[in-house]
């Protein structure tokens, strides 16, 4: 660590100003510093991160946690750059009836503590996640495995902590019995909730959450320093396909992504995968080839409370959809980085159709007004709901309001900006009485992940359509992913015909990196930090 001359000057000035003080805490001073520039130092790089919530794979769905866990764990399956499921910790995932699945685990794999990775490691982790009293976030993802109900009784403590549908046949074979056929099962295995856990984890789950032991290319290097950093280093036990090309990664935790972006510009952090949309054109100029933008799996929607009679008419939904100029909003609010959508699923999802929605997602004020009048117009106050989590929500809602005023003549529009912590409660309890912002972050690339979770039973809109639910069920039970896609598309058509939730736009993930690192191969499914190499000077 050498100080530049200018910084030394600044220090001298500071020393004069602060002359009198000494010994004030000083805890920050002793932090280890990376010896870059010497050529001998370890080849590590830093990645900007937001503080994760948990680091137990079964107990987090936060994208920040997953960024870290993706380096520490190998899930049975992963999604390649083309969106296709490929084997990772598993050798094969097969089924004859889509209901009972046989997962062969690759032999010879080890956790970073030396423990072998076996079928039991997976069964243990999945049971723990599905066990109601643990209260883990990803509990729901095991709902379709036989015996899930016994771990989550309506009341009282469960009589067992093992799902009857999980059967360890031998150390390398796990049989999974589902409650019904589900062709998408292998794709779901790419989700972090399906990662294995070693026996050592269960001795102290609390400690494990702070310092997880995984089967991936990296392992934790020291404790998780909350709100400051999480360091991982190359795991010596790793024998899988994605050997780390660097010695380690330091996740630097930022409270604000604007600050993280400033640090990237100042060369203080090597990789930032969440460049704010507002900075996209500037970042493109500054970073050139080192700026990468790609369509992600995240979608924004506008939902209607169909339990409210005033919003029951499908023509009203369509009128509103056609009165919104998505491109203009995206250009104004998101610098043109996000893409207007005419489909319920994101473009990277198999079975995506660019124009699934057709005319009703195209901006056409005249047709919109005609449909609006046909639906009987709208009387009273139109309340628009969104949360205060990000200022851009209010910006685009304001644009939507202006367009509805202009194109449909709805004059009385009010904004309902709800605190982020209260927003989901409001939607869940059906307390909203107007169109609301809905967002979905993809878990795995399957139309099922969008359609069933958002339009299925107990959806937030209060939309009920038996035919839709039947189609989803049929698609889930289809003999293969290929066979399932047309059925999901049919279901999507139904949801688009009534439009309880109108698609708005697809998010763009924007990343930038420093000149210190190479081989950055970020895909919408993974940051692939294992491939990154550090240039030695």
């Amino acid at each position: 660590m050498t100080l530049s001359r200018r910084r030394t000057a600044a220090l001298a000035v500071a020393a004069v100003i602060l002359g009198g003080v000494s010994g004030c805490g000083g805890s920050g001073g002793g932090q280890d510093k990376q010896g870059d520039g010497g050529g001998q130092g370890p080849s590590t790089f830093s990645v900007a991160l937001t503080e994760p919530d948990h680091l137990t794979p079964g107990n987090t769905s936060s994208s920040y946690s997953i960024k870290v866990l993706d380096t520490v764990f190998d899930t049975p399956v992963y999604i390649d750059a083309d969106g296709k499921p490929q084997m990772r910790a598993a050798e094969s995932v097969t089924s004859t009836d889509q209901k009972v699945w046989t997962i062969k685990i690759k032999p010879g794999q080890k956790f970073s503590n030396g423990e072998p990775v076996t079928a039991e490691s997976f069964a243990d982790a999945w049971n723990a996640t599905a066990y109601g009293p643990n209260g883990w976030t990803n509990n729901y993802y095991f709902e379709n495995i036989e015996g899930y109900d016994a771990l989550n009784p309506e009341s009282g403590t469960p009589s067992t902590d093992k799902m009857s549908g999980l059967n360890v046949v031998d150390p390398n074979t796990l049989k999974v019995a589902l409650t019904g056929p589900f062709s998408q099962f292998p794709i779901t295995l790419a989700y972090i909730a399906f990662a294995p856990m070693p026996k050592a984890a269960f001795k102290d789950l609390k400690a494990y959450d702070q310092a997880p032991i995984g089967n991936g290319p990296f392992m934790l290097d020291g404790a998780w320093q909350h709100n400051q950093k999480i360091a991982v280093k190359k795991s010596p036990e790793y024998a899988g396909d994605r050997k780390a090309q660097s010695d380690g990664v330091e996740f630097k935790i930022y409270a604000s992504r604007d600050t993280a972006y400033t640090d990237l510009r100042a060369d203080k952090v090597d990789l930032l995968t969440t460049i704010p949309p507002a900075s996209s054109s500037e970042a493109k100029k500054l970073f050139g080839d080192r700026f990468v933008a790609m369509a992600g799996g995240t979608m924004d929607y506008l939902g209607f409370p169909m339990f409210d009679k005033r919003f029951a008419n499908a023509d009203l939904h369509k009128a509103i959809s056609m009165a919104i100029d998505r491109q203009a909003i995206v250009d104004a609010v998101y610098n043109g980085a996000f893409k207007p959508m005419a489909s319920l699923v994101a473009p990277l999802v198999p079975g995506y159709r660019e124009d699934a929605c057709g005319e009703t997602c195209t901006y056409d004020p005249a047709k919109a007004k005609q449909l609006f009048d046909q639906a009987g117009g709208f009387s009273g106050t139109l309340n628009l709901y969104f949360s205060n989590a990000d200022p851009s929500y209010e910006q685009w809602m304001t644009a939507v309001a202006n367009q509805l005023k202009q194109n449909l003549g709805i004059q009385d529009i009010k904004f309902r900006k709800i605190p982020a912590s209260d927003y989901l409660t409001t939607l869940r309890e059906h307390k909203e009485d107007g169109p609301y912002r809905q967002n979905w972050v993809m878990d795995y690339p399957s139309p099922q992940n969008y359609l069933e979770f958002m339009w299925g039973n107990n959806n937030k809109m209060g939309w009920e359509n038996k035919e839709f639910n039947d189609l989803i069920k049929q698609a889930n039970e289809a003999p293969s992913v290929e066979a399932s896609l047309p059925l999901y598309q049919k279901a999507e058509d139904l949801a688009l015909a009534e439009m309880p939730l109108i698609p708005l736009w697809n998010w763009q993930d924007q990343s930038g990196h420093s000149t210190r690192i190479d081989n950055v191969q970020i895909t919408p499914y993974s940051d692939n930090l294992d491939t990154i190499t550090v240039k030695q000077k």
Partner: protein
Amino acid sequence: MRYAVQRLIQAVPVFVVTTFLIYTMVFALPGDPILALAGDKPVPEQVLDVLRERYHLNDPLLVQYGYYMLGVFRGDLGETFTGQPVSELLQDRWAVTAQLAVTAWIFELVVGIGLGVLAGLRRGGAADTAVLAGTTFVIAVPVFVVGYTAQILFGLNLGLFPTAGTDEGWPVSYLLPGMVLGSFGLAYVARLTRTSLVENLRADYVRTATAKGLGRRRIVGLHALRNSLIPVVTYLGIDFGNLMAGAVVTEGIFNLPGIGQQVFQSIQLQEGPVVVGVVTLLVMIFIVANLVVDLLYGVLDPRIRRA
């Protein structure tokens, strides 16, 4: 001495009332913190129940508060929704905020009083005008504008300071954020010192001292300045508490994981124990700072010294 002890005993009821009030306020926030944790993802009712039970969220306010106070007396300040003990969290975070506040405070004190004296001694001169204009400007511009501008200009473009984070430790990492945080107070200190000094320089005792033939340095340094500093000390004392509490914006801009950031996040997450823990400690700091100010009066002005 007895006076100091008395003042500290008065702090006990303040402590109890504050914790209860804060707890009530967090409790009164709308929404279900557990549901909010899951985001848009589905969470089965059973899991929600388990978590609500774990954090006593199903109980009425008084019972929840009771659990909290019981814990406090056992030395357990509770834990965050992510399972981190509040005591550990406070330890980490206070160190950061304390370093930031002290940096800002010293900046305020040294530069503020310096500028004030400079302006006060040359009333109406160029230095005075410059200080007045400069401080007006600083007070008028919101702190986040000063913060981002300073970060981009001195951190990113000129490279004089680190842009963000605590990597380089104290004082290097804290200099720029400290100056940003202290700039507002500095303006007040400079103006207070100036006005007070100008007034005192016209006072009878200064005239007497001048007539006696005392040197100007002695008059200003020992007599006028000492008297002039009484309002300044009051302000600096209270402002030390303000600096600790008011660091939210600065800590956010410069990514310093301090107390301000934590309170902001915890209020959003409705983590009662964290908010109560932090705010109560803030109240304690205010109490101690006020006490120190009162005791300092005595040093500066023997007339107010108590027996």
